[in-house]
C-alpha cells in the first residue's frame, strides 16, 4: 500500500521534507489488508490530467482508499492521463476489466490553488455517473484524495464513504501514553494529549470537535472534555472514587458517565462542563460502558444478573431491559449508526471477540478470528467496525466489515495501539 511516487516528482520534493516524513514514519499507523470482500468491483482511477503539478499524485490516495475498503479491485490503466471532459476510450478501459473508471483534470485556479474536476463513468453502459469539482491548496492533496474517494464510493455503493473521517486511539510507548488523532487511513497522526499515566475510553463529540476521555494523571480515573483544535480541556467528572466511560448524547450536550461516588459503578449523566449530574439507572451490581443509540436509548454493560451482559435504558433514565442472553461475558456495546444492530465483545471459550447482534432478528455473528478484542467502534456509515486486538503480544488496531468479510490491521513499528474510537463525518 506504499504510495508510488514517480521519479520525476520524487526529485521535486525537497530533501528535508523526505527526511521529516521518514522520521515521523515510526509513529505512523501502517495499514495492512488482511481480508477482502468476495465480489470486489473492478474499478480504474486514471491518472488525472495536470495532477503532476501537485506535490504527490492525488489519484494514489484515491486508489489506496478504494482498495482498502475491500469492496473494489483496482485496475491499472497506465500513466497516460485522462481528463474530466475528454472522450473516454471505453473499449480500452473495458479490455482491462474495469466496470467503472474515474477521470479528472487538475488546473490552476489562482493564488497557488488548484481546481480539480472528477467524473465517474460506468464502462459497460458507457454513461457518466456524475462529476464533482473542488478547489484545493496543493499541500492538501491527501484530504482532496479522500473526498474524491468518498464521491466514487457513494456513487458506486449508494452509501457515504468514510475516507475523510478521523480516528482517535491511545499509543503506549514504554511508560508514555499518547492520545492521538489520525486520518482514517492512519496517516497524519497528531498527539492531542501526552501523559505518564494511562489514558482510556476516548469518545468523539457528535460534531467531531471534542474528545471526552478518562485520564489517570490525578492518580485516579477522572473524565475530561478536550477541544481538539485548541487543546483546551475541562474536567467533566471528578467525584470521590472513580470516574469513567464517557459517552456523548446525540445532541452533544450531555455525557453519560460512570461514577462510584455513591458506592458501586453506576450510570449518571452530566453536562459537558461537568454541571447538572443526574442518575440514569440503579442496580446492586456494576453498571458501566454506556453508549447512546440514535433513538435515544443507552446501551450498557451490567453484571446485575450475575455475569456481565448488555442492557438498555431510556436516555432520560428508567427501567433497564436485558439485551444479550447467550454466553457469560458480553461487554462494550456500541449501537450501529442506524440503530438496527449492536456490536460488542463476547467471550467464547476464553477468546474475546467482536460480535454483531441484529436487534430485530436477534441473530448474532462473531466477526473476528482473534482472541483479545476490545473497544469496538462503528464507522459513521456503519460499514466497518474498528477495534483493538493483540498480534504477537503487541496491541494493534483492526477493522472488520459488518459482514465479517473485509479485514484490515493498523499498527505502529513500536508501541501498543489501543482504545480506538472512529470519529464522525466531518461537517463542511
Amino acid at each position, binding site marked *: 500500500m506504499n504510495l508510488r511516487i514517480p521519479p520525476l516528482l520524487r526529485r521535486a520534493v525537497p530533501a528535508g521534507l523526505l527526511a521529516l516524513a521518514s522520521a515521523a514514519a515510526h509513529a505512523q499507523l501502517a495499514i495492512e489488508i488482511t481480508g477482502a470482500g468476495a465480489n470486489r468491483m473492478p474499478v480504474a482511477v486514471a491518472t488525472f490530467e495536470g495532477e503532476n503539478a501537485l506535490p504527490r499524485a492525488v489519484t494514489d490516495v484515491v486508489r489506496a482508499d478504494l482498495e482498502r475498503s475491500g469492496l473494489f479491485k483496482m485496475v491499472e490503466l497506465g500513466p497516460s492521463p485522462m481528463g474530466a471532459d475528454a472522450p473516454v476510450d471505453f473499449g480500452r478501459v473495458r479490455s482491462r476489466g474495469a466496470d467503472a473508471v474515474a477521470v479528472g483534470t487538475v488546473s490552476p485556479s489562482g493564488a497557488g490553488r488548484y481546481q480539480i474536476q472528477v467524473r465517474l463513468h460506468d464502462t459497460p453502459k458507457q454513461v457518466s455517473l456524475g462529476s464533482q469539482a473542488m478547489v484545493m491548496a496543493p499541500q492538501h492533496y491527501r484530504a482532496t484524495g479522500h473526498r474524491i474517494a468518498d464521491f466514487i464510493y457513494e456513487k458506486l455503493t449508494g452509501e457515504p464513504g468514510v475516507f475523510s473521517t478521523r480516528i482517535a486511539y491511545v499509543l503506549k510507548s514504554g511508560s508514555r501514553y499518547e492520545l492521538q488523532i489520525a486520518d482514517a487511513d492512519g496517516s497524519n497522526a497528531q498527539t492531542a494529549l501526552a501523559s505518564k499515566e*494511562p489514558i*482510556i*475510553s476516548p469518545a468523539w463529540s457528535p460534531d467531531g470537535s471534542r474528545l471526552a476521555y*478518562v485520564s*489517570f494523571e490525578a*492518580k*485516579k*480515573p477522572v473524565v475530561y472534555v478536550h477541544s481538539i483544535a485548541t487543546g483546551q480541556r475541562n474536567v467533566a467528572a471528578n467525584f*470521590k*472514587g*472513580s470516574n*469513567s*466511560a464517557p459517552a456523548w448524547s446525540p445532541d452533544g450536550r450531555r455525557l453519560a458517565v*460512570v461514577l*462510584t461516588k455513591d*458506592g*458501586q*459503578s453506576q450510570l449518571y449523566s452530566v453536562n459537558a462542563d461537568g454541571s447538572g449530574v443526574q442518575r440514569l439507572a440503579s442496580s446492586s451490581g*456494576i*453498571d*458501566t*460502558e454506556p453508549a447512546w443509540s440514535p433513538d435515544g436509548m443507552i446501551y450498557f*454493560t451490567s453484571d446485575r444478573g450475575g455475569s*456481565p451482559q448488555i442492557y438498555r435504558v431510556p436516555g432520560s433514565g428508567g427501567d433497564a431491559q436485558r439485551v444479550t442472553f447467550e454466553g457469560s*461475558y458480553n*461487554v*462494550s456495546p456500541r449501537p450501529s449508526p442506524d440503530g438496527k444492530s449492536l456490536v460488542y*465483545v463476547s*467471550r467464547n471459550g476464553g477468546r*474475546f471477540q467482536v460480535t454483531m447482534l441484529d436487534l430485530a432478528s436477534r441473530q448474532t455473528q462473531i466477526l473476528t478470528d482473534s482472541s*483479545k478484542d*476490545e*473497544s469496538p467502534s462503528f464507522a459513521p456509515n456503519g460499514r466497518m467496525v474498528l477495534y483493538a486486538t493483540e498480534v504477537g*503480544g503487541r496491541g494493534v488496531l483492526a477493522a472488520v466489515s459488518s459482514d465479517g468479510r473485509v479485514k484490515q490491521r493498523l499498527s505502529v513499528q513500536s508501541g501498543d495501539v489501543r*482504545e480506538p474510537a472512529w470519529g464522525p463525518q466531518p461537517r463542511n
Partner: protein
Amino acid sequence: MKLVRFTLPLIAASVLAACSSAPGLDGQGAAVEDRSGAASSGVDSSRVTTVTADGVGGAGIAALKDPKNILSKRSVLFDYDSYVIKDQYRPLVEAHAKFLVANPTMKMLIQGNTDERGSREYNLALGQKRADAVKKALGLLGVAEGQLESVSLGEEKPSCNDATEACWAANRRGDMLYSGEF
C-alpha cells in the same frame, strides 16, 4: 495568639490519648507536643523538625514498613471475575483495621486492580468492586468512613506484565496505601 497556638495541639494530644487504648501509641502525645514546640519557638532557623503527615509518630510508620509485621503486607488477591475477600486474607484486613482504628488520623487509599483480560472499562468497575470490598471489610471492623477512599486502576497498572496465569493472579488485587504513600 499564643494561647490558641498551645491550645490546639493540646486538645489534639488529649483526643489522641483518650482514643489510644491500644498498645504502641504512647509516643503519639509526645510527637504532637514536639511539633507545637518547634512552631512556637520558631527562631532557630537551622533546626529541622521532621513532620509526618497526619500526626502519626515514627513507631506507627515503622510497623507499616517492618517486613516481620503483618502490616507491611498490603495486597489482597482475588479470584478471576470475583470481588470476594478470601478467608486467607482476613487476618491481614483485620490487622490493618486495628491499626486504622488505633490511628484515627491515618488515611488509607485502596486501589483495586484487575488482570488484563476483557474490557478495560468493565475491569475498571471490577477493580472498584475489589477496592470497595476491602473498604467495606475495614468499615465493618470499625474503621471510620472518612479514613478510607476506594478507587480503581482497572487493568492499567499491572504489577506483573506476562500473559500467564500466575501473573494474572498477581494483578487481581486490592492494594492498601497509607497517607504519604500515594
